[in-house]
């Protein structure tokens, strides 16, 4: 009977663990729609490099080997609709990076507005940040990877993602050149040293514990200790002996010798050391290449039966050439008049062109089940609004937001 119970429990645990699928999402669906739409916008996010071929999703996916690099480029901006409830309504610190299910890729290079930006940056509402990130494959598998913009007070906000398949490569290493010229492998650098040293301290501790627990009785001592004062070692009754004091002195000497000896060793072995660096700066301002159009949202109607948002927006072309609307982006969704990947949805717009110097009302039809799948329709929230960016053929873009109406 007991054996059966043990077998059943073991089998239960094994089946539970073995049948659990690996998580490939990042919790973005748990975020409220306003948090994803009213905070940051994404423009022209592109993944470049690797081999692009049909993957498990049936769509084009990226295939790279371990250590092989690809780049993620694009523009992100802090929208004027940034909620007053997040970061006091005045976001000032951000961090542009990538989101993946753990360290399945490594970040090798990162610039924001043309400047190397490994750490946090100073940001402000309305700021535009052009990023260029080089990432390399690390953990074999199929991973969904997004660019991300973390903003203090709001958390991590995601841009459009792609599936990246990392294939194993024999002898994969992650090299880093130190200032001394030594090339190390970040995957296991000094791991043995750390474990051996840590284990040595553990052995000393176990020695200390074995000394007391194997040589002396434990529970039985209570009959004696309950009858003597707390501030005595009970030497007169034989609880702790002079011999114990002497042996514990030796334990202390060995411990201090190891600590001081290794402290001297590290000073000799690694003489050049720095405190951890904290790099924070305001990146140079980014200006859009052309005359920036102005967009005003008029209405946004959502049809839950077809999961379609129909938006009317008045666009003023402030330049001297016609503008053609090519994209509407919001959060992780991109609607394109000519979708390049299956992850992009179809944008239908009429009329599609705004003449130079003119103001035109555009009607955008944005149909995609991910409006609901990604929880981007805020019908359960306190701010019923659709927010996004209109992207034009000259690369300029304009923020648009319109009140949302839907059926209940």
């Amino acid at each position, binding site marked *: 009977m007991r054996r059966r119970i043990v077998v059943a429990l073991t089998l239960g645990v094994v089946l539970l663990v073995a049948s659990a699928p690996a998580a490939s999402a990042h919790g973005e669906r748990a975020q409220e729609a306003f948090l994803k739409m009213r905070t940051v916008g994404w423009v022209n996010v592109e993944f470049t490099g690797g081999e692009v071929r049909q993957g498990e999703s049936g769509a084009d996916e990226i295939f790279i080997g371990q250590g092989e690099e690809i780049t993620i480029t694009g523009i992100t901006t802090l929208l004027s609709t940034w909620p007053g409830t997040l970061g006091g309504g005045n976001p000032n*610190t951000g*961090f542009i990076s990538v989101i993946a299910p*753990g*360290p399945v890729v490594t970040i090798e290079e990162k610039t924001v507005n043309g400047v190397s930006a490994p750490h946090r940056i100073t940001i402000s509402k309305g700021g535009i940040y052009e990023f260029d990130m080089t990432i390399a494959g690390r953990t074999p598998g199929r991973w969904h990877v997004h660019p991300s913009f973390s903003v203090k007070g709001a958390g991590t906000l995601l841009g459009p993602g792609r599936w990246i398949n990392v294939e194993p490569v024999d002898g994969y290493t992650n090299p*880093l050149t130190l200032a001394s010229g030594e090339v190390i492998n970040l995957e296991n650098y000094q791991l043995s040293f750390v474990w051996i040293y840590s284990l040595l301290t553990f052995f*000393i*501790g176990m020695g200390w514990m074995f000394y007391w627990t194997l040589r002396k009785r434990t529970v039985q001592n209570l009959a004696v200790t309950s009858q003597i004062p707390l501030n005595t070692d009970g030497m007169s*009754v034989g609880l702790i002996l002079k011999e114990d004091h002497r042996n514990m002195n030796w334990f202390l000497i060995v411990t201090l010798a190891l600590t001081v000896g290794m402290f001297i060793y590290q000073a000799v072995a690694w003489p050049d*050391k*720095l405190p951890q660096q904290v790099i924070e700066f305001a990146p140079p301002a980014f200006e859009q290449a052309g005359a920036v159009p102005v967009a005003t949202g008029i209405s946004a109607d959502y049809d839950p039966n077809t999961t379609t948002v129909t938006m009317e927006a008045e666009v003023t072309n402030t330049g001297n050439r016609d503008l053609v609307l090519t994209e509407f982006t919001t959060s992780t969704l991109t609607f394109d008049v000519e979708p390049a990947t299956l992850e992009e949805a179809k944008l239908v717009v009429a009329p599609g062109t705004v003449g130079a110097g003119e103001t035109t009302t555009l009607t955008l039809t944005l149909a995609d089940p991910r409006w609901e799948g990604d929880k981007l329709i805020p019908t359960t929230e306190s701010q019923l609004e659709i927010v996004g960016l209109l992207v034009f053929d000259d690369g300029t873009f304009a923020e648009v937001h319109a009140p949302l109406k839907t059926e209940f």
Partner: protein
Amino acid sequence: MASTTGSTTKDAELRELLHRNYKYIDWKWNAVFWITAAFVVGAAGDITKLLFAGDWDFWTDWKDRQWWPIITPFAIIIIGSALQYIQWLAWRFPTGMVYTAVAMWVFATFGRWVQWGAFLDYPLNFVWPMTMVSAAVVADWTLLKTKSFVLTSILGGMAFTIVWWMSNYVMIAPFLQPALWMDRVLTVADVQGIEYVRSQTPEYLRIVEHGSLRTFLGETTYVALAFGGVLSIAGYWIGQFIARALAIWPIGRFMKKW
């Protein structure tokens, strides 16, 4: 004279009691206690550490010279202090701190290896846990010599922090070497923190080199250690409170009642 004789008689009685054989209480009871309690103590110690100093213990790029030695000794001395009181009071063993340290070592190492290494594939040289054992030996030795919790808290608490820092600085040292990377001079630990993606821990959450302890010609570490030592003393008495008021006293009441 009579008092000395009385004391000697009492000592003789206690000495005899110390070596008395009990029919039902043998070494197995001791083994049961030490082994089963290790899980509770290890978990309690590790959870307390993670509550107060989790990220500093997780990542090399958080293990700085300022906040790491202030927060961590305070966090880890609490449960060790409670165990020190209980084991000294009940069995006159100066083992509470070391017992906590080795139990925590096993828990933290196993957790790091399984959760961060096997499940998430972080390189373990980025996420190794601190070791408390050397500092614990010093604290237990201090109790053994002083036989006083007040002196142990003051002398042991300060020594605990200093030895803890020295023993753990040894492990972080190779990761503080400079490297030119992304057109910046960064430490190896910084590079690890940037390269290995931490999905919901953006870099600006890192509390390192953050504060105004800038006196003494920039020798931040000494100021941090002094402050960390004082905090350890406070942490030590939190542990004593846990042991005396929450562990021993209720049991005492229960025992008297029944």
